[in-house]
C-alpha cells in the first residue's frame, strides 16, 4: 500500500466533474477473458460489492487479443452510465483513450492487474510484477542448483504484465552462467497452446531441465506435454504463478513443481472496497500491491486458501 488518494482532490482535468453524476448503483467489472483466475477475482468483487450495497456487473472480452471488444465494452458502459469501472485491461496502452473518456464522463476507473500508462486512472490494484518473475526464476534456479536448460513460455505477445515478469526472470537467470534459456515462446493463456508448443520443443531438444511459465494454465499444458512424453514426475521443473484445481492436481502428482499462488479473491475484494470508497468520498489507497506465495506439492494443503478458493467450489 503506497499512497493515499483523496476523492475531493480527484480532478481528471475538468474541475467540474464529480464521480457518478447519475447516482447509479451499478459497478462494472471488465475482464479480458474467462477462466478460473478470473472467476476467483469476480467472486471477490461480486461478494464485496453486494455486501456494500452496490450491483456488480461483469463483462469479458474473450481473450487478451480482443482489445477492440474491450474498447466497445467501455464505450457502451459510458452510455449505460455506470457508477464505476474496475478494469483488467487487455492492453496497457490501447485502452487509454477509452479510459480517459470514461473519467471525463464522471466514471472513475480502477486499473486492476494491468497498469495503464495514464494518470487518469483513479487507483491501481496490482501485483508486484517484477517480483513475480524474479521469484519464479529464483525457484527454478534453486531447484536446478544453479545449472540447467530452460524453456520459457512467456505469455501473450504485447502483454506488458507477462513481459515484465519475463524481464525480471531473465535478469535472474543471467546471473547463473550454467543456466541456459534454450527457447522462449509467446503464447496465449491457454493450456492447449502450451501443450502444443511444449510438445514441439521437447521433441526438438531432449535436454530440457525446466520450463518457466508465466501462468498456471500454461504450466498445465506444459505438464500435460511432459506427461504425454512419458517423462516421470519431478524430472522437469515446471513453475508458474497462480493456482487452480487442475494445476493443484498436477502439483500433487509432481508434474508441476512449484506455483506462486496469488490471492485473486482478495484482489477482487480490494478493488471493490476501493471503488466504493472513491464513490462515497472516503479516503482510499491510490495503489495497492498484493503478494503471491510459493507452494510445492509437499505443503500445498498448508496454505490459507481463502484468497483463492471460492467457497463451495
Amino acid at each position, binding site marked *: 500500500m503506497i499512497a493515499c488518494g483523496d476523492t475531493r482532490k480527484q480532478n481528471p482535468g475538468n474541475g467540474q466533474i464529480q464521480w457518478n453524476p447519475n447516482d447509479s448503483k451499478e459497478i462494472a467489472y471488465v475482464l479480458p477473458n474467462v477462466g478460473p483466475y478470473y472467476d476467483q477475482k469476480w467472486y471477490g468483487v461480486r461478494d464485496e460489492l453486494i455486501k456494500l450495497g452496490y450491483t456488480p456487473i461483469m*463483462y*469479458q472480452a474473450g481473450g487478451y487479443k480482443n*482489445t477492440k*471488444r474491450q474498447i466497445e465494452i467501455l464505450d457502451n458502459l459510458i*452510455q449505460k452510465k455506470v457508477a464505476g469501472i474496475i478494469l483488467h485491461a487487455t492492453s496497457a*496502452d490501447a485502452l487509454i483513450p*477509452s479510459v480517459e*473518456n470514461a473519467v471525463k464522463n464522471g466514471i472513475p476507473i480502477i486499473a486492476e492487474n494491468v497498469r495503464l500508462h495514464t494518470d487518469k486512472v483513479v487507483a491501481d490494484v496490482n501485483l508486484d510484477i517484477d517480483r513475480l518473475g524474479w521469484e519464479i526464476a529464483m525457484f527454478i534456479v534453486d531447484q536446478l542448483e544453479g545449472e540447467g536448460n530452460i524453456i520459457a513460455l512467456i505469455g501473450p505477445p504485447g502483454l506488458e504484465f507477462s513481459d515484465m515478469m519475463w524481464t525480471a526472470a531473465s535478469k535472474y537467470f543471467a546471473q547463473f552462467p550454467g543456466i541456459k534459456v534454450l527457447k522462449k515462446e509467446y503464447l496465449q493463456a491457454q493450456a492447449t497452446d502450451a501443450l502444443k508448443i511444449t510438445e514441439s520443443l521437447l521433441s526438438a531438444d531432449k535436454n530440457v531441465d525446466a520450463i518457466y511459465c508465466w501462468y498456471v494454465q500454461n504450466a498445465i499444458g506444459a505438464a500435460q506435454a511432459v506427461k504425454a512424453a512419458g517423462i516421470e514426475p519431478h524430472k522437469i521443473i515446471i513453475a508458474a504463478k497462480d493456482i487452480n484445481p487442475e494445476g493443484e492436481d498436477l502439483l500433487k502428482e509432481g508434474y508441476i513443481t512449484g506455483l506462486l499462488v496469488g490471492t485473486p479473491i482478495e484482489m477482487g475484494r480490494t478493488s471493490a472496497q476501493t471503488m466504493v470508497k472513491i464513490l462515497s468520498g472516503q479516503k482510499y489507497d491510490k495503489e495497492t500491491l498484493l503478494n503471491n506465495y510459493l507452494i510445492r506439492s509437499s505443503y500445498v494443503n498448508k496454505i490459507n486458501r481463502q484468497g483463492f478458493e471460492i467457497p463451495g467450489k
Partner: protein
Amino acid sequence: MKELSLNNKLLVVLVIELLLLSIFVGNFFTFSNFMNVFRQTSIIYMLALGQMLVLLVAGIDLSQGSIVGMVSVFSVVALKDFGVMAGILTGLVTGTAIGFINGFFVGKARIQPFITTLGTMYIINGITLSLTNGQPIFDIPLEYSKAFFFLGGGYILNIPIPFIIAILATVGLGIVLYAVPFGRHIYAVGDNEEAAKLCGINIFKIKFIVYGLSGFFTAIGALMLTSRVNSGEPLLGEGMLFESIGAVVVGGTSLMGGVGSIRGTIMGVLIIGFLVNGLDMMNLSTFIKDIIIGMIIIFAVYSAIQKKQNR
C-alpha cells in the same frame, strides 16, 4: 400483396430491434448512444464494404484482420517520425498494396480466393508479429497524437469523424458500383464469370481492383481504430474478419457472388452493431451475444436461400 424486398425487410428488422431496445434498455435511445454506435460500427463498416466487394466477384478476403494489424503498426511507425499525413498515407498504401497482392494471385494466378487470402493472412500476421515481437508501438509525439486521435475519436458538430468518413465512403463506392460501367462489371463477374469474359470484360482487372479496394477500405477502418487506441497494435484486427463477414452476409450479400448491395451492408452492420450495444447495456455476456449473432447469420442466409428457391 407484394413481398418486401430484402433491403426493406432488413430495415423493418432494424426498426423493430431499435424499438425493443429502446423499451427494454435504459439510456439506449439517446443521441449520445446512437453516435457511440455509429462511431463503433463505422470501423467494421469499412471492412464490410471491402468484404462485400470481394464477395460480389465470388471471392472472399480472409486477410482483413491481419491487414488491420499491419496497417496499425506501419502507420504509427511512419507517424512517429514523419507526421500524421505520412502515417495515414503509409497505412492506406500498405492496405491497398496487400489487397493488390491478393488480387494478383486470385485474378492472374487464379488461385482460389480462400487459399490466397488464408495464406496472406498468415504471412502478414507473421511479418507484423516478427517485426514488433508482439509489442505495441506507442509514445506517439504529443503534437501528432492529438491530430491523429481526431481521425477515430474526434467530432464535427457532435457527429463522430468515423461516421462522416463512412458516409463519404458510401457515396464514393455508390458512384463506383451504380453509376459507372465498372460497377456493373463487378456484378457481372460475380454472377457468371464465363459469360462476363465472353462479353469482353477483363476478369483479372476487375478482381485486381476489387481486392485492392478491399485492402483500401480495410486500411481506412484500421486507421480509425488505430487512432482510437493511439498506438500501433499488431493484433488489433483480431476477430474483425468474422464481424465483417457476418455483417455482409446478414445484409444479403451472397457468398456465391453477384448479389449484394451497399444498403444491405449498412443494414447488416447496424443490426449487429445495435444488438451488441444493446446486449452490453443489458449486461448479457459476450458468449450470449455470439450465440445470437450466429443465429442471425444462419437465419439471414436461410432466408436468402428460401427466397431464391421460391423464384
